[in-house]
């Protein structure tokens, strides 16, 4: 620091600790609520320390589900969320990287047009064009399928841009050397470009996995089949039980399970996460 002012450092620590407390507080409450019996969560205010029903609550929702919300086991929902999140992340990366490869390394008619078409997708979040997107998905028979959950969300301008920017930093000499050695375009992509893009792919994967896992509106409108319920639509169903307070203990156990995978991904892969976040905003 510039000068020594111990009291300022103390204030800094106090403010940061308060920030941490406020940030973590609702998650603590969620955890506490998920460990009590349903009846314990009718008093005002609810208890602040965990109860004894942790195993029972989590066991109930994981394997048999909440009766009030259709009784789908949450284990199935988590599996569906995982399929959707992986599908979206892998799909987006795959189609973006090859599109960026074509745009940077080939000259062909309509190249600029394609580039601008991809750029447009950046501007149109699914929430904004929900009705017509639903209609086309319905008309090609993708309702109530994993394809319908995944494919409409895998076009990505951000990922294409990221790969384009990265490819542009790779020296031309590398391509020329590869070509002199007789490598064709596919060989160059597979043996040189892909390995070089590894960190970018991983960083992007972290961000896109979270994006896919947290999808809410799209799964809500394209699936009615209970076996395709994702964890987010499952939470929605439990919140919306008509004419009664939600079953807080089960709802909160579900919320914990919904939060855990993406939080783990962020904390464990912190470096890649920060990199992905900063890169995708360029």
């Amino acid at each position, binding site marked *: *620091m*510039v000068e020594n002012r111990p009291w*300022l*450092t103390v204030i*800094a*620590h106090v*403010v940061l600790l308060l*920030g*941490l407390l406020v*940030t*973590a507080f*609702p998650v603590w409450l*969620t955890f506490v609520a998920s460990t009590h019996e349903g009846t314990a*969560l*009718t*008093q*005002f*205010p*609810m208890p*602040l320390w965990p109860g004894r029903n942790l195993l029972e609550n989590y066991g109930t929702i994981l394997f048999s589900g909440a009766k009030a919300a259709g009784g789908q086991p949450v284990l199935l929902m988590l599996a569906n969320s995982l399929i959707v999140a992986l599908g979206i992340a892998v799909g987006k990366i795959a*189609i*973006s990287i*090859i*599109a960026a490869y*074509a745009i940077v*390394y*080939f*000259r062909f008619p309509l190249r600029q047009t394609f580039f601008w*078409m*991809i750029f*447009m*997708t*950046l*501007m*149109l979040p699914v*929430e*904004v*064009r*929900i*009705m*017509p997107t639903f209609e086309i*998905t319905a008309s*090609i028979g993708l309702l109530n399928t994993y394809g319908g959950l995944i*494919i409409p969300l895998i076009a990505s301008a951000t990922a*294409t841009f990221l790969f384009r920017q990265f490819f542009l930093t790779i020296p031309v000499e590398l*391509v020329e050397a590869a070509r002199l050695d007789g490598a064709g375009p596919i060989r160059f992509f597979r043996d040189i470009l892909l390995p070089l893009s590894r960190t970018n792919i991983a960083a992007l994967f972290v961000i896109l996995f979270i994006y896919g896992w947290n999808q*809410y*509106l799209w799964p809500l409108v394209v699936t009615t089949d209970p076996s395709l319920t994702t964890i*987010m639509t499952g939470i*929605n169903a439990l*919140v919306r039980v008509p004419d009664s307070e939600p079953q807080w203990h089960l709802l909160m156990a579900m*919320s914990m399970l*919904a939060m855990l995978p*993406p*939080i783990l991904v*962020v904390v464990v892969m*912190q470096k890649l996460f920060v990199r992905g*976040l*900063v890169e995708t*905003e360029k």
Partner: protein
Amino acid sequence: MHQSSPFNHRLLPYLLVLPQIAVTLAFFIWPALNAVWLSTRREDAFGLSSEFVGLEHYIAIFHDATYTRALVNTAVFSTGVTVVSLALALLLAVMADRVVRGAMVYKTLLIWPYAVAPAVAGVIWWLAFNPSIGVVAYYINILGYDWNHLIKAKDAMMLVIFAAAWKQISYNFLFFLAGLQAIPRSLIEAAALDGASPFRRFWTVIFPLLSPTTFFLLVVNIIYAFFDTFALIHATTSGGPAGSTETLVLKVFMDGFVGLDLGGSSAQSVVLMVMVMGLTVIQFRFIERKVQY
């Protein structure tokens, strides 16, 4: 771009862009055009035929009190979210930039809310503020205010603003911290030598140098509040009580899927598309300045 084409191949580049272009055409461009088309048509009662009605739907939505209410709600909501999350994130980032020991630990412990789904963020704050069991509601009651977001419009709005801001703090924090750490130490030291207090240094040196980051975050936060908070509001208040937290994005969905008003919902979609395009253009116009750090 490379000056000359490294590879010559007639068919391959088309095959490579095909998947991305196909998805874009089918699920982005076609729906967008379709929304524009539908917004100028009116279907008969059976949906068998439709006629061109020009801008009628647009005129109708702007004369609709529930639409103007959603506009106002969106303005209040996005201003609230942006101000609260930017201010708190800046405060925390300045403090984290100050501490030498433990900065990394604080960073790790502050960034995870980014990963929490908007729907879940809404639900967990909904529990904390719940008027019949919530801990926060309990203490607010003790302070003499009868908190009830199920009945009171203002309380409901505050709840969704708070939950949405909470989720966004980690993102803003990361960018502010990166911006702060990129400010040359020599500038701050020079100001200190001239006798500027830490407080003064912040307002006259650090804050102005941080303005590109702040501006960039301002746009990103507005986009977030406009479009990425659907789940948060839908899973908690669902726009209630009495439409007091219904934002534009929520209304498009409600009118389209619940109300089945195709023309009106499409016109609303088009208005939102124009808004998001405007915001994206602003974001890109200033991208050069943002690259400072």
